[in-house]
């Protein structure tokens, strides 16, 4: 049989080629697509598990688009009041908005409807989570350095937009929980000085809750925000192609090359297959795990609310920030109300966002390094950056934990007041502690790397020398393993030099002290002389 197929194919393949050939020719003559294939078909992509986080984000977004389109065919974005007459008995006869009614119908009267709702919601959660992790990966490996600063900014805006998508989508079913979320937004907006009252009035089309906001959020959710997100994702990916992907340092890898697999066929198979895996995992979660059971909450009503209700986790940090404000931060001055219990969290969170957004430019200013960086840093090899990141994560995590303060209190049987005070402490002092610890750990790891590069691993094997002395045999690394430990970027603190006029500008002085703070503690990389010497031992 197998010998048959080996001899037979010649004419067969010729016939096949001519069909595909004809089609390709037809298309190419009208699109010059062959140039695209030539340019990108064999483009090399490096391999590493952490590079898949961004892929997860991209693929879950595609799943969101697919499942979301399905949902729009059935959803009514209207706050017109209707009487529920669907299959879910406990709510029968209740008055609710058409939005809630149709969301319930999707859940209980359309085959696969609940599945699609849950696919959509799980995919959205995965989308935001994977963007967050992807950003952490980018940050801690220094992938944001030149020439990728702008792509960091784009990615960051995408993160904010994704949260906007999440919040608007969460609000659409007009159930009790999402209505309460809107209520909080309304209160927040009203607390903004000068324009707050009017912004709320315009957003809700009158007094809260009004009969407009669901329709307006729907437009944002399915038209405006997705359009911007799609455009920015496209731009984000164009930049990935223009810059070529970063890679971790390793044998054979330099700042001037990319080592990996070509798009066609290996990368296409792996990445394409990975899309189906992500989609499949989301489908599994949607099949097994209920998410956002609006039928348990009931329609929105401004009066009832239950204890322990929480926003979707990605909004948690903002909710937590509100909870941490001590009592009494509101004043009347010149007949106007200054709600610092709202202004302060808004300003602090806004500031945090701006700091994260601008970090690449800050670091570039400190190092003064104008070179392109395509080799990633291992986090330990950039101790101060890693420590700043750890501080930021601690800050965010404290706010996030604060959003569950009531649950923490009941779970650990603590007084609410104590939980809040502890979290106020960790929010303010925690980042400093985290900074210190992370930096120490990084430097310790660097030292260890240096030891291992020079003397190898401790093998645990003890031998007795002819002279009677006992030593532990060190297992030397091979040169490829060792290179991973040796190859990293290094900076020294800035030395202040007078400028042409013989003066030292204050900007220089500031930069020098920041630079000292950054690079004072460093571990020297191993030199080849040292290596040689150690190998003679």
């Amino acid at each position, binding site marked *: 049989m197998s010998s048959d197929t080996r001899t037979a194919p010649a004419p067969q393949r010729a016939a096949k080629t001519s069909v595909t050939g004809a089609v390709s020719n037809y298309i190419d003559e009208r699109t010059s697509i062959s140039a695209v294939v030539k340019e990108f078909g064999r483009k090399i992509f490096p391999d590493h598990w952490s590079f898949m986080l961004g892929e997860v984000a991209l693929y879950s977004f595609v799943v969101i688009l697919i499942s979301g389109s399905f949902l729009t065919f059935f959803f009514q974005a209207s706050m017109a009041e209707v009487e529920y007459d669907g299959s879910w008995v406990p709510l029968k006869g209740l008055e609710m908005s058409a939005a809630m009614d149709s969301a319930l119908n999707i859940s209980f009267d359309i085959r696969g409807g609940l599945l699609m709702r849950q696919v959509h919601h799980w995919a959205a959660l995965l989308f935001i989570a994977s963007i967050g992790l992807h950003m952490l990966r980018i940050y801690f490996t220094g992938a944001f350095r030149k020439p990728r600063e702008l792509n960091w900014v784009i990615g960051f805006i995408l993160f904010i937009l994704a949260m906007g998508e999440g919040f608007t989508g969460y609000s659409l079913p007009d159930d009790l929980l999402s209505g309460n979320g809107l209520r909080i937004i309304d209160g927040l907006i009203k607390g903004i000085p*000068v324009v707050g009252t009017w912004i709320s009035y315009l957003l809700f089309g009158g007094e809260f809750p009004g009969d407009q906001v669901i329709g307006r959020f729907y437009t944002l959710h399915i038209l405006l925000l997705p359009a911007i997100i799609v455009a920015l994702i496209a731009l984000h990916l164009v930049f990935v192609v223009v810059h070529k992907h970063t890679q971790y340092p390793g044998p054979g890898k330099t700042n001037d090359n990319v080592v990996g697999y070509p798009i066609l066929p290996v990368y296409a198979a792996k990445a394409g297959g990975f899309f189906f895996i992500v989609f499949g995992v989301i489908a599994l979660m949607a099949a097994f795990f209920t998410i956002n059971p609006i039928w348990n909450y009931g329609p929105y009503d401004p*009066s009832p609310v239950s204890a322990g209700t929480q926003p979707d986790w990605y909004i948690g940090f903002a909710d937590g920030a509100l909870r941490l404000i001590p009592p009494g931060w509101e004043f009347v001055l010149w007949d106007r109300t200054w709600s610092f219990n709202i202004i302060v969290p808004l300003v602090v969170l806004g500031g945090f966002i701006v700091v994260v957004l601008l970090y690449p430019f800050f670091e570039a200013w400190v190092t003064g390094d104008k070179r392109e960086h395509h080799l990633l840093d291992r986090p330990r090899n950039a101790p101060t950056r890693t420590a700043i990141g750890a501080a930021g994560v601690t800050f965010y995590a404290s706010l996030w934990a604060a959003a569950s303060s009531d649950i923490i209190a009941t779970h650990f049987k603590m007084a609410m007041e104590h939980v809040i005070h502890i979290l106020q402490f960790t929010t303010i002092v925690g980042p400093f502690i985290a900074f210190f610890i992370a930096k120490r750990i990084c430097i310790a790891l660097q030292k260890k790397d240096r030891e291992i590069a020079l003397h190898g691993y401790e093998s645990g094997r003890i031998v007795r020398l002819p002279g009677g002395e006992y030593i532990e045999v060190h297992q030397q690394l091979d040169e490829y393993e060792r290179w991973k430990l040796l190859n990293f970027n290094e900076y020294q603190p800035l030395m202040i030099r007078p400028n042409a006029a013989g003066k030292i500008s204050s900007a220089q002085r500031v930069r020098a002290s920041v630079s000292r703070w950054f690079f004072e503690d460093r571990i020297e990389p191993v030199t080849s002389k040292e290596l040689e010497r150690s190998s003679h031992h």
Partner: protein
Amino acid sequence: MANEEGGTGLVPADASVSHGRDVSAGTAVVQRDLAQNPGLPPHRPRTTDLDPKADKRSERGVSLLFYLSIVGSIGAIVSYFALPIVPDDPASVRLNTLFIGLSIALALLSIGIGAVHWGKALMADHEGIDIRHPTRGTDATRERAVEIFREADQESGFNRRKLLRNSLFGAFIAFPLPAIFLFRDLAPADNDPAELLRHTMWEEGVRLTRDPEGTPIKASDVTLGSAFHVIPEGLNETEHKLEEKAKAAVLLMRLKPEDLNVSPGREDWNYQGIVAYSKICTHVGCPVALYEQQTHHLLCPCHQSQFDIKNEAEVIFGPAKRPLPQLPITIDADGYLVARRDFTEPVGPSFWERGEYEQ
């Protein structure tokens, strides 16, 4: 922390690291005698490269997965028909969701795992190397770009004809302005939002009724330690029910009269220890729905503000600042609880213009 040798071996990183262009490396340093990159490690063949049987096995495995995917897709369609949603039967919804979901997941995961395995085990796995080029255009390209702009400027007179250019800028600034005004009608034009926030449905003689039924409450119904969720009578019939409710919702409690600390001017706001407070949190507006009977504290579930009913709902913890506004109540001729008047201050979250209404 530098080792003793480091000082002499250190030189500022030179430009050659960056594509031979003269780019500042800032404060970066390199060791003069840094160890050499050993180059790519030797290629290690996989079992599928060495053992034709393993290769065949992998191939069969992958194609099996692809067939399995077809099974999953068909399974989803079968589940769609075989597990219909039966009205009033939530279990049928669960089954329908579960099996359609599982089948779709099977179809997708099989394709995914199969393709990845094909890529990993069967496709040629020789690593390729691409050379990077600086992101900036070459000097020639950049010069040409500058020249194009210069030519365009000359040909259009963009910088020469100042009047023309500046008037165009003016037009560009002006043309989006109408949009701002068009958005004014997002909300009705004839109302002042601050004024709307000032009033609720409560007025003299309006009965306190149960939420949501709307049945009136006799003073004798309110026993010590009980709490009622209250709406004004007639709320359910109003046109803007939710908007009114979002302002007028009230919590009614009875305390021992001697437990109440009543401030001057509010002596007749409670009725024999029965007090009514706005249920809308003065922080950002959640319903303050949790009443602790022993301590007479109200707790807001959103950010844990606590209000002390014994002391006219003053804030004892949490981010809220102002006490919950009190609704002055009494009883009517039939013994039903009624409001004496509207709240004396706006209820709910703070807003900019609110200060005007404070005493």
